[in-house]
């Protein structure tokens, strides 16, 4: 099977006090579709830089990144942006919800950016959190048992899907709130819903359980596991030992170098 993500000798140097140093140093990484990979390591060892190189938000000093068969460095801004919008879902380390939009609009925005291409063509969608169209009866029984709230915007597939994702993460009752009204953990869960909105092939999560209690961590990790089982490649940076129980493979990053944990 072709790799969803592949890096080859990936390097990014910065200068600190006039001296160059490699934040990411000749990293070789492969993540297959449906594989759930975790990267652990101390803060400041290049994990976030690696993730930003993968998304094309930073250009490598050396080496290459291939996502879904496309060399990220060769993409122009429009193509790289389209890839971030449609192929990659990114849960950042810090809260990047837009303060001016409601939770619901925050989740919908990536789809609004993609335009109508993501809208279902066969009428009203019925999708689970991974984005696959499935009958309601076949939902994962391990997922939290929640009562679906009344849907006021059933005619709008984007609104429907956003509610579905928020419900999966148990924050659907906050759909009309603004981010400043949320706790850190709630914001993190909304960010995950936003990252999943466009049904990404590659989900990148930078400490997705950083602000969460044990119960919420379990909810999020089960969801990410479910996403991976649905065929999405998941690359997660984490400091949370509890989260590692859900992954297929764990790597360690130390001073820019990536190795098996």
């Amino acid at each position, binding site marked *: 099977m072709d790799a969803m993500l592949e890096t080859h000798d990936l390097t990014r140097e910065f200068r600190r006090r006039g001296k160059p140093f490699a934040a990411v140093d000749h990293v070789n990484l492969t993540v297959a579709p449906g594989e759930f990979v975790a990267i652990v390591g101390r803060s400041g060892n290049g994990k976030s830089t690696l993730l930003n190189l993968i998304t094309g938000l930073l250009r490598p000093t050396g080496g290459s990144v291939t996502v879904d068969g496309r060399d990220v460095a060769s993409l122009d801004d429009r193509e790289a942006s389209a890839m971030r919008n449609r192929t990659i879902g990114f849960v950042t380390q810090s809260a990047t919800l837009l303060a*001016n939009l409601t939770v619901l*609009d925050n989740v919908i925005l990536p789809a*609004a950016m993609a335009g109508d291409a993501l809208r279902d063509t066969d009428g009203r969608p019925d999708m689970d959190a991974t984005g696959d169209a499935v009958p309601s009866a076949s939902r994962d029984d391990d997922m939290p048992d929640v009562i679906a709230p009344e849907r006021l915007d059933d005619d709008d597939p984007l609104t429907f899907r956003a509610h579905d994702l928020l419900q999966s993460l148990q924050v659907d009752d906050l759909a009309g709130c603004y981010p400043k009204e949320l706790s850190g953990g709630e914001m993190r869960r909304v960010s995950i819903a936003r990252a999943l909105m466009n049904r990404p092939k590659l989900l990148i999560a930078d400490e997705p359980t950083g602000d969460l209690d044990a119960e919420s961590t379990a909810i999020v990790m089960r969801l990410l596991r479910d996403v991976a089982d649905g065929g999405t490649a998941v690359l997660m940076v984490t400091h949370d030992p509890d989260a590692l129980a859900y992954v297929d493979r764990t790597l360690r990053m130390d001073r820019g170098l990536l190795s098996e944990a």
Partner: protein
Amino acid sequence: MPHVTLKSLPFENLKRKPFRTAALVIVVTMLTVAFYGGALLATNLKAGLNSMQERMGADLMVVPQNTGTKAEALLTSGSSSTFYFTNDIERAVASADGVGQVTAQTYISSLAAACCDEKVQIIGFDPATDFVIEPWITSQYDGALKDGEVVAGANINVSANGTIKLYNHEFPVAAQLASAGTSLDNSVFVNETTIPAVVSYSAKAGHAAIPAEYADKAISAVLIRTDGAEAKTVAANIAETVKADGVTGLGYVYPGGVTASTKASLDAIIGYAGLFLAVFWIMGLVVLLAVFASAMNERKREFAAYRIMGATRGMLVGVIVRESAAVGLIGGVIGIAGASLAILPFNTLIGQRLQLPYLQTGVATVLALVVAGLVFAVATGLAASVVSAVRLSAPETYLTLREGE
């Protein structure tokens, strides 16, 4: 409720930051008031000047000694006055070399007293010889002005029964003229043959405008159109001619010179206003740039989020540009509406305060200025966002954006 779209995003951003939006709108509003208001005033002043030039008609005015200033004020927008010759000067002037066409006018100022509806300039003219006022009146009133009737200037308050009371006499108003933007708007016009009656009414009211012995022959100015000779040469010829009759010390007014000096004053005012406007605009633009740049720093995380979600640099610039254009448009509309309300209903008052010819320009010109004002306001808003847009267009945007992380 419809969900968010890229088009609605800038407006959501503006709506959720009401104080920042209001501050930006206020700055643009102030700049637009200065730009549009200044342009409207300048246009009206130029229209007044053009109107004054059209109304001049004469190359030279001969007036009594030391009344030149009063006569000039009559041509522009000064206060009304009364002056007259005590001798028959018109025939002597007409006989001078270089004089082509001659007509006489009489100027009497009514009183701001109980006897009169208002203080106006009464101008007596001879319809048979007049080449200054008569063509203008004829262009708007095709009837013949009868003795005892008046034609009212644009600013004259004519009573409901179509008359105006001057020196306790109700004069029928035959017609009212369109605005000229000069003191003629505050004048009433009568036949030369009506002047003795006006003098008589003034005497009865206890405020004789002209002594009774001069009532039948009093003229205030002889207006001359030369036969092509220089006005100053003709004035010298007139001085020589009347000297033979023992008359010395006449006053001479050169309407072309009055126009030139008024134009010079106007150009100076417009020049200073333009300079002030430019400085004001630059200051306002600096404030807007600072506010936008400051907001840009505050919003780094927000822009990072857009990029992470797949926004192109063009989309980010588009969001910024639409926000600033909306601020410009809102500020522009408010500024234009405010300036219009402050200027358009008060033309007469503004003209009087400026002491310059002032004529409200036409609807088409005002509409053109409105459009120009809106374009200016939107352009100002867009210019203010240029720095932010350029920064967001940097090749490796994340290096800028990560500062907010």
